[in-house]
């Protein structure tokens, strides 16, 4: 008889690790992509749009499959499955977060850029000290949604042979046939975890909120 708790714990840790890494690395990369799309010129813009279309337009399971099997086979190298998991979730999230950051930057861009230039700052300085601090504040609520969405997508890791929280539940159900208890417990864990993180995001949003820089959604 399998002991369900270590399985659930390991699965939960995998879900947490992959989703947190995905959402933070995705924000960093998404910001770079947003700025590249806005200021990188036509070539980069087309490249970045292609990237976004690929990651938004295909199921994450297929993306994991491509990165674990297809690309290494074609290019003849080996890669660790967990590393692929982390990477693909970050790349996937970046494609979405690029859109949020770009929208926020565009919303505050023109007048603030000119004001920044008018006091003698360079474009880069204005971006770093004026535009991004405002854009990232506006992005927090969307970022929180993205986190929920990623957390619930980690079952896809199963295609790599990695067990997240849901996969752990499936294993337990397969061995114990306690369907209702197991899935109810898992649902509660998801609910508690997502509630905690979104609450933290709300608190950060409130704490960092500045009068005049709010989203009206």
């Amino acid at each position, binding site marked *: 008889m399998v002991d369900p708790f270590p399985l659930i714990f390991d699965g939960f840790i995998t879900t947490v690790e992959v989703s947190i890494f995905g959402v933070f690395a995705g924000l960093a990369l998404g910001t770079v992509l947003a700025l590249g799309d806005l200021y990188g010129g036509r070539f980069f813009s087309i490249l970045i749009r292609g990237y976004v279309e690929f990651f938004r337009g295909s199921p994450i399971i297929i993306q994991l499959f491509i990165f674990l099997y297809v690309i290494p086979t074609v290019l003849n190298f080996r890669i660790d499955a967990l590393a692929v998991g982390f990477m693909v979730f970050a790349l996937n999230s970046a494609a979405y977060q690029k859109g949020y950051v770009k929208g926020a930057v565009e919303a*505050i861009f023109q*007048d*603030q850029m*000119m*004001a*920044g*230039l*008018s*006091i*003698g*700052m*360079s474009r880069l*300085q204005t971006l770093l*000290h*004026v535009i991004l*601090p*405002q854009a990232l*504040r506006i992005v927090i609520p969307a970022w929180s949604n993205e986190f929920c969405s990623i957390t619930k997508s980690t079952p896809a890791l199963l295609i790599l042979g990695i067990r997240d929280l849901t996969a752990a539940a499936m294993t337990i159900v397969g061995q114990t046939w306690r369907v209702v208890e197991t899935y109810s417990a898992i649902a509660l864990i998801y609910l508690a975890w997502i509630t905690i993180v979104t609450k933290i995001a709300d608190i950060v949003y409130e704490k960092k909120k*500045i*009068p*005049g*820089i709010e989203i009206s959604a």
Partner: protein
Amino acid sequence: MANTVMRCEHLWKTYEKHLIAVKDVSMRIEEGDIKLIFGPSGSGKSTFLRCLAMLTIPDKGDIYLREECLTTSGVNLNRARARIGFVFQHIWLFRHLTAQGNVELALRRVLKLHKEEARERALQALREVRMEEWAHHYPAQLSGGQQQRIGIARALARNPDIILLDEPTSALDPELTGEVIDTLRDLAKKGTTMLIVSHEMPFAREIADEMLFYDAGKIVETGPPEQFFTNPQSERAQKFMTRLIKRTRKE
């Protein structure tokens, strides 16, 4: 002979669809001068002012700040802009920074002053526009007039060679206009070199050394305020002044 702070020669700026905003304009501003540009909306005044600050790059012609030509290639435009104060019609404060933060930013990031010194100078600039007690407020917590005074403090704090003001009161109601005008009057008394786009005629008459009537991308007429109030030379300026004076009386 007075020192020329800024001059431009044969300046041109055309937007798409052949809209000429600046059409072969030349002018100069000496140290301590206060010049006031006025003219119909859409005539290109804002574009002209932005060209002078190199916030909009002119198509042709030269701009000199002191001896330095800003329109030759290889000029460090950021450094040049740091020596020009610019006040926007729609104010455009940095919304995520307090009043003090708005003024301090350039002192820290552009002039690279030490934190303490930057703070001192920012507070000094806020004192000059009588906004010191609002130092820790964010733009959204201030009235339009207060915001514009912060905008002026932000332009002042670097001790620029010249301050360019693009209709600093036109987005404000008459009451708030008064407080901004008072601030500008203070600056005028201190001998600040200014080029102001404005339609505040009583104010113009009081402080301007020279007025420039700008229409359809050109400076049509130049002269002391009295000339415009009593005997404008060009027909366009005559018509415009008549309308403007009527409107001012109504207010």
